[in-house]
């Protein structure tokens, strides 16, 4: 990790191993989350952030704590905010008529609840024995299109499968083709 040897182009140059931070994936020199490095590579940490800082951190853990606490509180607040956002976002189940007696069911907004759409689509396909796919709608958002009218069943299935999704946030909509 010392200075890179300006090796002459010898026949066999060995690859250097560069550690990457576990949080932000940057090499430690450019990474600003010291915590990972201090935990995983003490030697490098002390080189990079000078021994003085290292001593402070290791000798008096008391000094370090308030800062950590603050950080934790911040993170907690962030997570809470995210959860709140999640709670507000809605899942729409929409029944769209294709012809007079055939229709598809579209599910919007599942991704807001950290649902893997592809897996969800597969699950629907398995459950209802029908075609089901993830497509992009014209707004560029992903949605799941299930062939056939299965809106009520999907409603139940979502509740059963992803308990994080609150029941009140799921809306059923019917979209009838305008009669010509």
């Amino acid at each position, binding site marked *: 990790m010392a200075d*890179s040897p300006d*090796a002459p182009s010898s026949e066999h140059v060995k690859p250097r191993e560069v550690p990457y931070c576990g949080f932000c*994936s940057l*090499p430690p020199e450019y990474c600003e989350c010291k915590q990972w490095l201090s935990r995983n590579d003490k030697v490098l940490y002390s080189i990079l952030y000078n021994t003085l800082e290292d001593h402070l951190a290791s000798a008096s853990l008391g000094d370090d704590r308030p800062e950590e606490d603050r950080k934790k509180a911040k993170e907690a607040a962030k997570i809470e905010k995210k959860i709140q956002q999640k709670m507000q976002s809605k899942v729409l189940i929409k029944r769209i008529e294709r012809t007079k007696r055939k229709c598809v069911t579209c599910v919007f907004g599942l991704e807001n609840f950290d649902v893997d759409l592809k897996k969800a689509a597969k699950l629907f396909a398995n459950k209802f024995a029908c075609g089901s796919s993830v497509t992009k709608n014209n707004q560029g958002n992903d949605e799941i299109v299930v062939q056939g009218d299965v809106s009520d069943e999907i409603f139940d299935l979502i509740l059963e499968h992803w308990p994080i999704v609150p029941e009140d946030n799921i809306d059923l909509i019917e979209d009838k083709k305008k009669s010509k």
Partner: protein
Amino acid sequence: MLASRRFSVKDDVTGHTQVKSSVQRAIRAKILEQYKEGIEGIIDDVMPKKSPLILMKCHEHINLIVMNNEVLFFNHFDGPYYPTLKLLHKYPNMLPRLQVDRGAIKFVMAGANIMCPGLTSKGARMDVSVPADAVVAITAEGKNEILAVGTTKMSTDDIKRINKNIGVETVHYLNDCLWKSVVVL
């Protein structure tokens, strides 16, 4: 040039194929020709002749060259092959290196092109002379690791002489989207 800032593997890779051996040889030859002495000693380690090479095609004519689940190089249309930073970290002597001063680091890591003064000031170093349109690695004052890859917009002599405008166009930098997806891979 490269939209590496907005790049993401999930959305932008349109397909990946294992290339024919003749194509593989052509790519290899091109890379060898491009980097010459920088890579001769290591090419067999970087791209073993026998192992299969996968070409990932992305939107906007960006190609990624993948071997053993690692993205090694990328290029745009017919352009030069740029090594990814991960590869460069392993073999830092592959490319001529220019050093920017401390103040430039955060801008480079935000994707800015490198302006001449950042290469000529006190903390910066240009030990090698490089012509225009060459692929260079960018290091920084007080750091060992390479921070970005770019192409020179003018030769190093011109950079010293003119000392204005863009000296190196940043193509790939730490923590851009390509980096993120490469690390994940």
